[in-house]
């Protein structure tokens, strides 16, 4: 298989679904945990629960790094970002996580500045971080009103 649509082939999915159903022992319930948040995303996006028998249940695990970050760490990030002259970059979803002291993304409204006035995600190279230096920030820009689409999110 070479193309993504081949991994989404409905006929093959139905065939697998039937094979799974055939393996179910009568009266037994099955519970599997998908550890990774990326799997959770696929399961809901493609409605995979509808392809499984009622007796097979998928349980969502802790494999979403942004989800397991405690609020205290977000506040630590905010404290660093509020230091004068600091430019902080991170993955887009991290920027939206609420901490006790606020959301990193909203710091802009508290007088913190970012390269080109927006937040950046991804790698930093060169002299980024020091005013007047030719620093470059790679990656997409994140807007305040950006919907959740996952393109810039931290991978599980």
């Amino acid at each position, binding site marked *: 298989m070479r193309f993504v649509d081949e*991994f989404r082939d409905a006929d093959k999915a139905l065939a697998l679904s039937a094979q799974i159903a055939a393996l179910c022992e009568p009266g037994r319930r099955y519970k599997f945990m998908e550890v990774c948040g990326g799997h959770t995303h696929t399961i809901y996006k493609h409605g995979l629960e509808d392809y499984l028998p009622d007796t097979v249940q998928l349980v969502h*695990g802790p494999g979403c790094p942004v989800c397991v970050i405690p609020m205290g760490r977000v506040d630590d990030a905010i*404290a660093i970002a509020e230091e004068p002259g600091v430019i902080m970059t991170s993955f887009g*979803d991290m920027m939206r996580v*609420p901490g006790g002291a606020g959301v990193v993304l909203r710091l802009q409204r508290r007088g913190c500045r970012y390269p080109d006035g927006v937040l950046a995600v991804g790698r930093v190279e060169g002299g980024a971080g020091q005013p007047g230096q030719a620093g470059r920030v790679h990656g997409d820009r994140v807007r305040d009103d950006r919907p959740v689409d996952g393109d810039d999110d931290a991978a599980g």
Partner: protein
Amino acid sequence: MAIGFETTAPSTAMTMLRAEALGLTNFSVFCNHVTIIPAIKAILDSPDLRLDGFIGPGHVSTVIGCRPYEFIAAGHGKPLVCAGFEPLDILQSVYMLMLQLAEGRCEVENQYSRVVPWDGNLKALQVINQTMALRPYFEWRGLGFISHSALAVNDRYAAFDAERIFDVPGVRVADPKACQCGEVLKGVLKPWECKVFGTACTPETPIGTCMVSSEGACAAYYNFGRFSRERVKQATRTVDIELSSARP
């Protein structure tokens, strides 16, 4: 702010190596990398859950490989299948788990072999080891403090460690009372069973983390799953109405 499982840790490590090569003095990393194995151990030790097996994390496994999961099959008697991220990958992994149970096997299998090498990515593991060290413990939302479950910048690269350069409060902040992310993360609660799901807590105004990231169960369910669930509800309601109107 560096974050992620072993999946993203190598890119942070490479960034530090690059910063070292460039001789940067104005660059630092606030390291929040976590490791997957201690989290799975915590889940296995949790009394709330009775699981039949695991769909293993594909992206993490590209770095750490399949070997670290062997204790789950050998020591805890739960099969694990490393899975890819397309719909057929996940269905095939469920099939492989069911087949193991039906045949009375309990093994670690690799469904995602087109990307995941059994021994992992040795170069990636090497740069992680070169620049980072395990923390004695780290707090996880929902799971509490787990020992040796996160990475910090090691002593050799201390010059790039934001936690040593800046004054970090390091205060523990309690989650909002209404938020039930902890239960959702442990798999005890389904997203829609949370009290604030879809009402006070939405991707636009998240209260908890699970509603923020696209990988969070709540955000994924809010964006996609609720429609099919509503359809099912709608369908049963229609049937109910038809049944009640059919009665004499």
